């Protein structure tokens, strides 16, 4: 990687410590006199001791001491993005793909406000992230100083927690707390705001191995009595359904394995949310597809008709439930979540279980296996027969004979060419739904998208983070011509760090999802959803030093993908000119129930469009 190509490190000037400083260091820990470091050095050492591989950032005045400390070491690698939003998304993508916390370093004022969209994105999807930002010196705080913003104030609604460090002696402990809070319980972003003068002061450095915060004690194990109750309810079900979300992905690989065990032992149907895809293999017959607004007919109908619903690490989001008053009308609900406030927030729950998804699922499997008796449920036959009838509707069908490139076809081919093993990031809109519907993820942490906040511009920088976390892996960014423009500057970062991403631009010259809603619900008044004056994406990619390819015919799709994927060295930007009129089906209009899906009409026109105008 090119990041090591730089002039050899100059020797840092010898540092002179006063006797008083050394005395403080010795007094604090008589066993081993702690090294006295500046605040900036402490920040970098904390990251090293936290075993942080990469940080994503952008320098500026208030962060310069920290950047100077970074320059004088080689262990923590800094990735310079071209915009602070890109840094936050890249750290987020890294965290989603690896399970390790993403770290962001930015300066005060605009540096930190530019990260807010990225922080909010991570917050909505519960992604572990630590954002370190410079702040103006303490004596200037509150004076409307140059590049001053109340970072704790502006970030408060979208962080798990935040800190303003007022004392260099508290710095290491605060950073430790930040990582602890970000990565435990329901994960989330934590911001640490450090005034510039604090980074210049010195303190003895000691990084605590373990900490305890009296006001913060996340639960891990589910209550055993509740687990047994849940298993009994599942066994007694006539029309069971298992619905899992991002919590199973976030909990770690063991959670997905435990889920897979549970579903296969029971033989019950399983659906995943947009955030949960890959936690249960899509290639398994027991998988009925994604649920929700653009979920499959069989998944949503099974949700509507089930009598026992097991929900794990999912939060009954409005895009999943549709109209709450008609949601799962016949079901007793078991809800497993690490965040107690998620349970009972939107729907009434029969068996609540607070705990880590992986541990609770493993406990459920143990109860099932240890319970003895016949775990075969004799009602399953008729339930599966019904589900297969729904499945036969083939709600994801599209016109395969079209002379224009259908976006679904591109994703299907991408799956074939990458053998289903790529990491796929996406932006937000129609392309995101098609990627979710057609890539068929078999493993967790392979599908990286902004589900909760729905952030356009997420896909490219997230893909950079994914690739850095998995060097050598095939990383694809499925995007649209509207989304990709929002963080296009990161193509420059990809060049600097040799990140050979594969960008699949499904270019329909419209903000597709906005256009779809305007077609359905606004009498085809396409208000500002048309992308006029688009760039020549091939030339654009080439101007950044990458390879650009335009694909205009269905017959060229597979070969273009195959060639791009086999190019291990270069970023390839593929601009697929797709059918402008294609819509995402099936669809539940906002405010409708799972049983009121709109399907594509038989002649593959848009006759399945919802007739009523529902606004949401």
């Amino acid at each position, binding site marked *: 990687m090119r990041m090591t190509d730089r002039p050899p490190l100059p020797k840092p000037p010898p540092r002179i410590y006063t006797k008083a400083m050394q005395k403080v260091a010795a007094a604090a820990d008589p066993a081993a006199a702690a090294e006295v470091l500046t605040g900036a050095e402490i920040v970098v050492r904390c990251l090293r001791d936290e075993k942080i591989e990469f940080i994503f950032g952008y320098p500026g005045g208030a962060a310069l001491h920290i950047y100077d400390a970074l320059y004088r070491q080689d262990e923590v690698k800094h990735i310079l993005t071209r915009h602070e939003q890109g840094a936050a998304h890249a750290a987020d993508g890294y965290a989603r793909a690896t399970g390790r916390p993403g770290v962001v370093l930015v300066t005060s004022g605009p540096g930190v406000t530019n990260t807010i969209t990225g922080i909010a994105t991570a917050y909505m999807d519960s992604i572990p992230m630590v954002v370190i930002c410079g702040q103006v010196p303490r004596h200037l705080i509150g004076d409307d100083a140059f590049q001053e913003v109340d970072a704790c104030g502006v970030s*408060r609604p979208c962080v798990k927690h*935040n800190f303003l460090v007022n004392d260099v002696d508290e710095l290491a402990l605060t950073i430790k707390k930040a990582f602890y809070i970000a990565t435990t319980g329901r994960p989330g972003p934590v911001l640490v705001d450090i005034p510039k003068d604090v980074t210049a002061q010195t303190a003895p450095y000691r990084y605590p191995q373990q900490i305890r915060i009296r006001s913060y004690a996340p639960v891990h194990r589910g209550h055993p009595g509740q687990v047994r109750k849940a298993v009994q309810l599942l066994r007694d079900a006539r029309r069971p359904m298992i619905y899992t979300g991002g919590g199973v992905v976030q909990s770690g690989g063991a959670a997905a394995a435990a889920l897979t065990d549970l579903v296969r032992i029971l033989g019950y149907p399983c659906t995943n949310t947009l955030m949960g895809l890959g936690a249960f293999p899509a290639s398994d017959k027991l998988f009925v597809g994604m649920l929700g607004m653009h979920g499959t007919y069989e998944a949503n109908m099974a949700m509507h008709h089930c009598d026992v619903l097991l929900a794990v690490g999912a939060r009954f989001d409005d895009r999943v439930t549709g109209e709450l008053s008609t949601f799962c009308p016949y079901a007793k609900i078991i809800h497993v979540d690490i965040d107690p*406030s998620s349970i009972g927030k939107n729907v009434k729950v029969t068996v609540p279980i607070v705990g880590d998804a992986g541990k609770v699922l493993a406990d459920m499997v143990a109860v099932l296996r240890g319970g003895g008796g016949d775990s075969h449920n004799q009602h399953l036959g008729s339930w599966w027969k019904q589900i297969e009838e729904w499945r036969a509707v083939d709600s994801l069908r599209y016109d395969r004979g079209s002379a224009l490139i259908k976006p679904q076809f591109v994703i299907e081919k991408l799956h074939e060419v990458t053998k289903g093993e790529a990491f796929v990031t996406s932006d937000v809109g129609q392309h995101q739904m098609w990627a979710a519907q057609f890539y068929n993820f078999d493993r967790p942490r392979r599908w990286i998208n902004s589900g909760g906040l729905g952030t356009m511009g997420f896909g490219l920088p997230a893909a950079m983070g994914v690739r850095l976390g998995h060097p050598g892996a095939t990383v694809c960014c499925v995007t649209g011509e509207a989304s990709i423009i929002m963080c296009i500057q990161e193509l420059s970062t990809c060049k600097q760090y040799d990140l050979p991403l594969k960008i699949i631009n499904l270019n329909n010259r419209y903000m597709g999802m906005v256009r779809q809603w305007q077609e359905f619900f606004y009498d085809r008044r396409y208000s500002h959803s048309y992308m006029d004056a688009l760039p020549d994406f091939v030339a654009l990619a080439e101007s950044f030093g990458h390879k650009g390819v335009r694909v205009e015919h269905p017959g060229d799709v597979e070969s273009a993908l195959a060639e791009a994927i086999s190019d291990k060295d270069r970023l390839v930007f593929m601009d697929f000119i797709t059918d402008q009129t294609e819509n995402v089906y099936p669809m539940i209009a906002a405010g409708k129930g799972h049983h009121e899906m709109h399907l594509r009409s038989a002649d593959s026109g848009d006759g399945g469009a919802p007739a009523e105008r529902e606004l949401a």
Partner: protein
Amino acid sequence: MEERRRIISILMENEAGALSRVAGLFSARGFNIESLTVAPTEDSTLSRMTLVTGGDEAVIEQITKQLHKLVDVVKLMDLTDGRHIQRELMLVKVEATGEAREEVKRLVDIFRGNVVDVGETLYTVELTGAGGKLDAFLEALSPNRIVEVVRSGISGIARGGRALTVR
């Protein structure tokens, strides 16, 4: 579902920004706050907050869970779940001239308040009690005599052995 008024007592870290986290939570999630009082406890690392809110059972459950989720919140208790004491402090500036001067004084005595400042035409009255008592005092004064009212909001504590403490 039935809407009920609740008094929630919160023990939280005495950190900068802790109050704004609570206030921000209520505005972001659309919960209502009737009153909020906060001050450090005998342990200067902890603050005690008494929050009066209302809502049906589901809303109150969400409020308590969301408060619990705040990293700075150590413990909380819904005082209205059990027997409890609630007190509020009120300072009232009242016109007191002529015959009314005696009448106001008598009223203050009946309500077991104190006149804490005396001017030529004004009394400043201090009164402590449950909210209803303070309301009753204001009703007993004729409204055109009231110059200014300051109320602290409720502070509450559980009766008996129930206590909200880290020990």
